[in-house]
């Protein structure tokens, strides 16, 4: 393919737009992890005894586990004792009660990111539970949500105010010892988001949380728990950016979703953690466990993710389809450029009758990026008339990148219908030529084709995110084709 050096120079080298660092005095534990640290985290957060015990048992389980090695990613060994497991921004004694009380420096950070908490929230009707490092500092639109009966708060708040709900559902989808990173998270998670939508309630607005990693050497261990009670609907948006820095930072979050009878949960993510520089130096390790359980009949969980950031992405948002007639969806765009590595996909575990699942995965590899789709579709013996359709396509944009597909299909029920399709190709010369001869610049043509390639996924995103995602993609890819 013809090269466009001027574009490559200008655009590949585009700096990470969200790369800045806010200097905040942080209340930080020294690096290291043992039972004392966990007790410390627990007591700092005034947690009840059972939660402390739960953390400790997760920790003990973690000690017996090994870091998974099966993913097609390579990274230097992680020193888990070199991480500080607790860091909280200094706040006034009882925490801020309104935006005025929030540390102005924090607000400035969000301004730079283009998230004017107050304005945008009102204009877009979005309640933002902003997580800065590990402790929630500002929550908006509580009242409107409260009117509807929706509980949407930080995890620590939920532990304080709704201990029964937390105790009932915490770890019920992702058990404390589920895997190495989930166990680590269960032991040391500092905060996150909690959402409960009561029976028959349609959540009046899109819920969203912005995560940011800030203080140096602080792994982020977020915990998200969303429960949609019978007949309720909720759409949750999650977006991530992180400041630029050279040291690899570990991010091991756990997200649990529970959908009861006739409930619907839509979970959308735009992930744009710092991917490292063009030489593969630095960047975030994003090792996330996300799982939803369609516990009730006719329930539905839908995952949509746009993964453009992180040096390494290791994440498999999954659905356990337990209830009869329940359905799961997974829509994903994963982009790797420079030295980025992504091993991502989903698991659809069909247990109930007439359960359906759809998987649409689009992988884009550029530079020396490695992109793998790894998925499991399991039809259990009990899942009569289950149906799955999987499509994973890869787009290759350089001769040094890699694209892999590892789908596992396990069928134990003859009435199931499972289809899997995958293709790998590059942008065809013909398509490019067609666009260019109509006067469209090569760069625009490529953006257009790539956006077309991802369209099936983008259309699943809520509006605000769809725009952001398209922008993100063209920035991340700019000049990558040469």
């Amino acid at each position, binding site marked *: 393919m013809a090269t466009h050096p001027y574009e490559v120079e200008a655009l590949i080298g585009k700096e990470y737009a969200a790369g800045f660092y806010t200097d905040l005095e942080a209340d930080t534990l020294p690096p290291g992890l043992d039972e004392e640290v966990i007790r410390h985290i627990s007591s700092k957060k005034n947690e009840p005894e059972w939660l402390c015990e739960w953390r400790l048992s997760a920790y003990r389980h973690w000690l017996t586990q090994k870091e998974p090695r*099966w993913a097609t990613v390579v990274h230097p060994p992680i020193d888990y004792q070199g991480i500080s497991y607790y860091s909280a921004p200094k706040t006034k004694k009882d925490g801020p009660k309104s935006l005025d009380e929030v540390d102005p420096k924090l607000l400035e950070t969000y301004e730079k990111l283009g998230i004017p908490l107050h304005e945008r929230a009102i204009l877009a009707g979005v309640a933002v539970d902003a997580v800065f490092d590990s402790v929630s500092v500002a929550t908006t639109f509580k009242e409107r949500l409260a009117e509807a009966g929706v509980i949407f708060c930080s995890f620590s708040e939920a532990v304080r105010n709704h201990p029964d709900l937390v105790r009932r559902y915490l770890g019920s989808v992702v058990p404390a010892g589920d895997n190495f990173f989930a166990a680590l998270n269960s032991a040391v998670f500092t905060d996150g988001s909690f959402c409960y939508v009561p029976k028959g309630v349609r959540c009046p607005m899109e819920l969203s949380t912005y995560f940011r990693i800030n203080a140096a050497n602080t792994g982020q261990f977020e915990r998200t728990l969303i429960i949609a009670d019978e007949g309720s609907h909720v759409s949750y948006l999650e977006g991530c950016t992180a400041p630029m820095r050279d040291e690899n930072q570990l991010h091991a979050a756990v997200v649990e979703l529970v959908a009861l009878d006739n409930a619907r949960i839509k979970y959308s993510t735009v992930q744009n953690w710092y991917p490292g520089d063009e030489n593969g130096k630095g960047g975030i390790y994003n090792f996330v466990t996300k799982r939803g359980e369609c516990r009730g009949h006719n329930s539905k969980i839908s995952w949509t993710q746009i993964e453009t950031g992180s040096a390494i992405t290791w994440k498999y948002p999954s659905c356990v389809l337990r209830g009869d007639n329940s359905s799961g969806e997974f829509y994903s765009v994963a982009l790797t450029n420079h030295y980025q590595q992504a091993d991502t996909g989903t698991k659809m575990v069909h247990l109930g009758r007439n359960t359906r699942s759809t998987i649409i995965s689009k992988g884009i590899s550029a530079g020396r990026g490695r992109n793998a789709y790894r998925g499991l579709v399991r039809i259990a013996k009990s899942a009569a008339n289950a149906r799955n359709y999987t499509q994973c396509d890869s787009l290759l944009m350089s001769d040094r990148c890699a694209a892999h597909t590892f789908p596992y299909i396990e069928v134990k029920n003859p009435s199931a219908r499972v289809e899997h399709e995958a293709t790998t190709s590059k942008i065809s010369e013909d398509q490019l030529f067609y666009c260019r001869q109509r006067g469209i610049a090569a760069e625009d043509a490529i953006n257009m084709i790539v956006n077309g390639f991802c369209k099936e996924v983008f259309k699943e995103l809520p509006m605000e995110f769809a725009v952001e995602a398209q922008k993100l993609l063209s920035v991340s890819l700019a000049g990558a084709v040469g």
Partner: protein
Amino acid sequence: MAAAERAGMTGTMASHYAEEFARAEGGLVGADSGWFKAARRRALTHFGRIGFPTPKEEEWKYTSVAPIESRSFRLAGHPRNGLDVAELDRLRLIEAHELVFVNGYYSAQLSRLASLPAAVSVAPLSEALPDSLQEHMERQAEQPGNGFAALNAALLSDGVHIRVGSGVTLKTTLHLLFISTAPDGPTASFPRVFIEAGANSRVLIIEHYAGLTPEEYFTDALTEINVGPGATVEHYKWQMEGARGYHIGQMLVHQQRESRVTSYSVSLGAALARDDIAVSLAGEGAGASLNGLYMAKGRQHVDHHTSIDHQQPHTTSAEYYKGVLAGHARGVFDGKVVVREGAQKADAELTNKNLLLSEHAEMDTKPELQIYADDVKCSHGATVGQLDEDALFYLRSRGIEYSQATALLTYAFADDVVARIAIEPMRHAIERHLTAYLPRAALDMELL
């Protein structure tokens, strides 16, 4: 199984086969060849080290070889005991060069080898052991993957070496018939096939495994095919092991520039069958086409692992595997396609379709792509399901009863692969098997 217990088991198995080795070494092929003996010894040591694979290994995730591991198979002492020659005759093909192996040992008496063109040599290893095999033997002796190749190298009782000279077309089919009769209780045989196709040569080979016994036995086969530039090899593997037979087969294909390989793997027999096919497209423009059909019922377990490695530009591969599973049968398919860096313009296509006919049948499939080049065209697809309801309805609306309609559609599903088989007698035999396999009322042949 606890690790220590496992290690113990591997240990006893290794020592069991070491004893077999010590007992039989003098009578095995190549006993008077120094390098051959050395390679055997090394293989035995290697097997002692790695043992049998376990389901913890990714490649053996869905297939447990515990039944093979827990039995003490012996090398047949008197291979031809209890052989029913009439039954053997039914397996013969007309107009073919036939090499017959009974329980792993070559039988000159039963074989029919008419005169061959000058540049073609076909000989059992017990008659000729060319030094050119040394490198192959040594490589397979310490193959890292799993213990079966090493075990074969250590204990191979006999095998065949086929060499087709440059530019020669061998018109007559080569039929390699491996018969198991389990003459003295559970026996094991370790056949080995070497095929060398010279530049621009052409050859057609059938590897045929058949069990003429209701007893338990174990076949651990290894085939290597080297395909020279521009050569064409058609290879058929016809696996009809006995109902209590265990079959582990491995085929390694190495292709040079512009060569063509067409492989058919038909797996119908055995209690447990595992086939590994690894194709290296090592020369520019090389192409491989792999076709397969497996049909299992009862408690059969059938597993196919294929791997196609596109190492050079302009290489092509097409893979088409179909499976039908009934009763409590379990099928496994793993098709891997790798396109290496620099192998531009590679074209790979893989399809695996499966039909589950009963509520206890199970299918695990994993088509896999690993791409390191950008200018490629790769796709794969896999399906697991039932017969098409519309097609069933169509037939029933025309007065064909349900069982007949099901049988007819199942037949059509499988025949899709069978119809591609060019060797008529083999195709007919498999079609007969297909008819007998079909559930409930046998298919009314008039409908076909």
